[in-house]
């Protein structure tokens, strides 16, 4: 990889006392405790204060888009879990929706409800990991274990639903692979009832902690205009005050049947759009997801969970651009089909790829410890960036 493209010109200043100072070039990553996954930042710092942080991505590039052209439509579904293995269900849903839109397949109501339950659980699952590891990056280890403990419950529920704990491969083109197992509904409702007060306990433990808010307030402020310009999406966009959610503003699946509101950053601890806002939007979104899952489980209709889709699936030629609200914001699937059994082209535009492109802009004159907070607050996840 070398330093090609990262030649950082080293400034050597001699201050008045004739003392020569020199910038320090640090390579943070790809093996670093708090770059989530294999990310690398070349930092030019004057002591602790960073002058520039240049991200260097590509370490986890498996070229999933090339694999899509090699395996058939059904065969690519397990690979979509690997696009963002922290929140795998929305990726399944994206691929399934793209194929259904191309072949104009109508998914039965119960299948759509199962999808919404699975996606919302996967969103809580991913937010718990993001919020927990953000607290650990700032230095508090206990909230991480509490978040992971709650996440284990969701792992068990989803394991019972579809048989896997991380790469679920639960959804199929035309619906979902399995129906809810008997007794699962009450377990899920019991979990939600138990989980909601624990979010408040998590907040009391860490979110309102003075040291925590001091570390996050007014750090890496992103204005609404910059957020839209850099195509920040999801909690990163809502943290900057733009009240936009694909589930409500570009409704898809059965989301219009539920009412939930969209938490937005209000600059409680500093200015709108700082690290704390992005963090607190994620926490409040977990509560909204609980509301959606509860409504979903109560209004669950009967009927089949998957439509009739031929095993050798050949959608008509054409292209489509599907957008859905994944845990890291609005994920865009641009899929082209040429009528054969193999997808012609599949481009996945993810939230983290946009979020990491803003890091050089916001990280000027921050401290190295703040860069860790910025990475965590933007919820960067390496597989999504490199695909």
């Amino acid at each position: 990889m070398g330093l090609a493209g990262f030649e950082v010109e080293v400034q050597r200043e001699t201050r008045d006392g004739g003392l020569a100072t020199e910038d320090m070039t640090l390579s943070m990553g790809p093996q670093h405790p708090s770059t989530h996954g294999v990310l690398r930042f070349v930092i030019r710092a004057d002591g602790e204060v960073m002058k520039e942080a240049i991200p260097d991505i590509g370490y986890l590039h498996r070229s999933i888009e090339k694999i899509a052209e090699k395996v058939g439509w059904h065969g690519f579904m397990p690979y979509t879990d690997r696009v963002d293995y922290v929140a795998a269900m929305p990726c399944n849903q994206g691929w399934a929706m793209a194929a259904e839109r191309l072949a104009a397949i109508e998914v039965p109501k119960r299948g759509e409800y199962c999808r919404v339950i699975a996606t919302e659980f996967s969103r809580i699952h991913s937010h718990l990991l993001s919020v927990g590891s953000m607290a650990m990056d700032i230095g508090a280890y206990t909230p991480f274990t509490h978040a992971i403990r709650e996440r284990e419950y969701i792992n068990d529920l989803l394991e019972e639903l579809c048989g896997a704990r991380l790469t679920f491969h639960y959804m199929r083109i035309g619906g979902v692979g399995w129906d809810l197992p008997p007794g699962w509904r009450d377990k899920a409702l019991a979990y939600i009832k138990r989980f909601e007060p624990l979010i408040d306990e998590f907040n009391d433990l860490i979110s309102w902690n003075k040291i925590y808010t001091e570390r996050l307030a007014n750090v890496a402020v992103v204005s609404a205009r910059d957020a839209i310009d850099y195509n920040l999406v999801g909690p990163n966009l809502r943290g900057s005050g733009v009240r936009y959610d694909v589930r409500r503003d570009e409704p898809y699946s059965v989301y219009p049947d539920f009412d939930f509101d969209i938490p937005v950053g209000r600059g409680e601890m500093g200015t709108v759009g700082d690290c704390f806002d992005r963090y607190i939007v994620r926490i409040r979104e977990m509560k909204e997801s609980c509301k959606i899952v509860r409504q979903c489980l109560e209004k669950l209709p009967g009927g089949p969970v998957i439509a009739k889709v031929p095993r050798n699936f050949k959608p008509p030629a054409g292209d489509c651009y599907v957008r859905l609200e994944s845990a890291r914001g609005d994920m865009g699937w641009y899929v082209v089909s040429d009528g054969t059994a193999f997808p012609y082209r599949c481009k996945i535009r993810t939230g983290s790829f946009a979020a990491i492109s803003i890091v050089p802009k916001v990280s000027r004159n921050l401290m190295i410890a703040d860069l860790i907070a910025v990475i965590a607050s933007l919820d960067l996840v390496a597989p999504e960036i490199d695909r």
Partner: protein
Amino acid sequence: MQEFVDGLVANPSWVHYLGAMLAFGGIVVFGFVLPIAGITTWVERRVAGRIQSRIGPNRTGPAGFLQWLADGIKSLLKEDIVPDAADAPLFKLAPYVVMTGFVGAFVALPFGGPLIIADLNVGILYITAVTSLVVVGILMAGWSSNNKWSLLGGIRSAAQIVSYEIPAGLSIFPIVMLSGALSMQSIIAEQGAAPWRWFIFNNPFTFIAFFIFFVAALAEGNRTPFDLPEAESELVMGFATEYSGMRNLLFFMAEWGNLYVIGAIVATLFLGGWQIPWALAEHPVPRVALQFGTFFLKSYFWVFVAVWLRWTLPRIRVDQMMIMCWKYLVPLAFVNLLGTAAWMVVFPHGAPGVPELLCVAAAVLLGLFLRRVRYHLTRAGLKREELSYNILATERIPGLG
């Protein structure tokens, strides 16, 4: 020590005395000081496990008590690498400088009436001086390992420990003024056994001075929220990045040892040290044992509080750490110093009802805190069988799949 050696050897020369002293020192260090550091690790890992809904070490020895011995032996057997780009002599010397800083403090710690190695008349001054050797060792380690992360860690620790010496020192002065002497035993002698006779409740200023001293001592011991020099999530391992094997263990043994030293100093200065209410003059052995026990309990309670703080609070940033020291702790420490001086002028023999009042106030604060703890328990909706008051329990929450 002199008569003991004379009894042993016919005409002892200075070599015999040196040998006896080293032997005695070795016994005390390896028999008492290092196990204390080890036991503190065990306390920390068990309490941390419990706070994080897990168990902590419970395989080696009863309830995992010999975990520290296992870690020690493992580190001894591990290969300790000296990076070739590192400045080898300094690199190898750093851990021992830190260890001398930690072990040196035990000389003046009063474990009981007669149980003190050397009752120096400059007791607390000596301890403050010796514990600041740690910063020399850490800076040496950070700079000599020729690694950018360690350099950052070393510089941070230099800034932190040096600047937190000031509030720590300033909050010791009121106690020294009250007791009129620097020696640890006489500071304890000035305080009585009953809580309202302790210096902490003597007047409101020493009450605040206690908290400032505790926070500053945490910063000196590199404990969260001030564990910047060895910040795992930012600087990989801070100053100890290049260390491995026994050298690495020496650093962390010194850190946990310092935690006990903080507890001991706090117990001595503010909480009446080994004072016990009963005289028991006629049978000395149980009296000294009881004194040793109360001193041990008091200092281990504050070790527990430091561990509890570590697993609750996040880490502070470097500039915030400096702001907190120079803008918050140092001014308050000056206010306490002047306040105590004024207090002593106004009430030469201590204000009549104030210690008792402060004691009651502290009890009320504790009551409010426990009410808040019960509120968290009820809000989390925990059933009776999900609770267990035995902290070493390893049995799992029932009903989980």
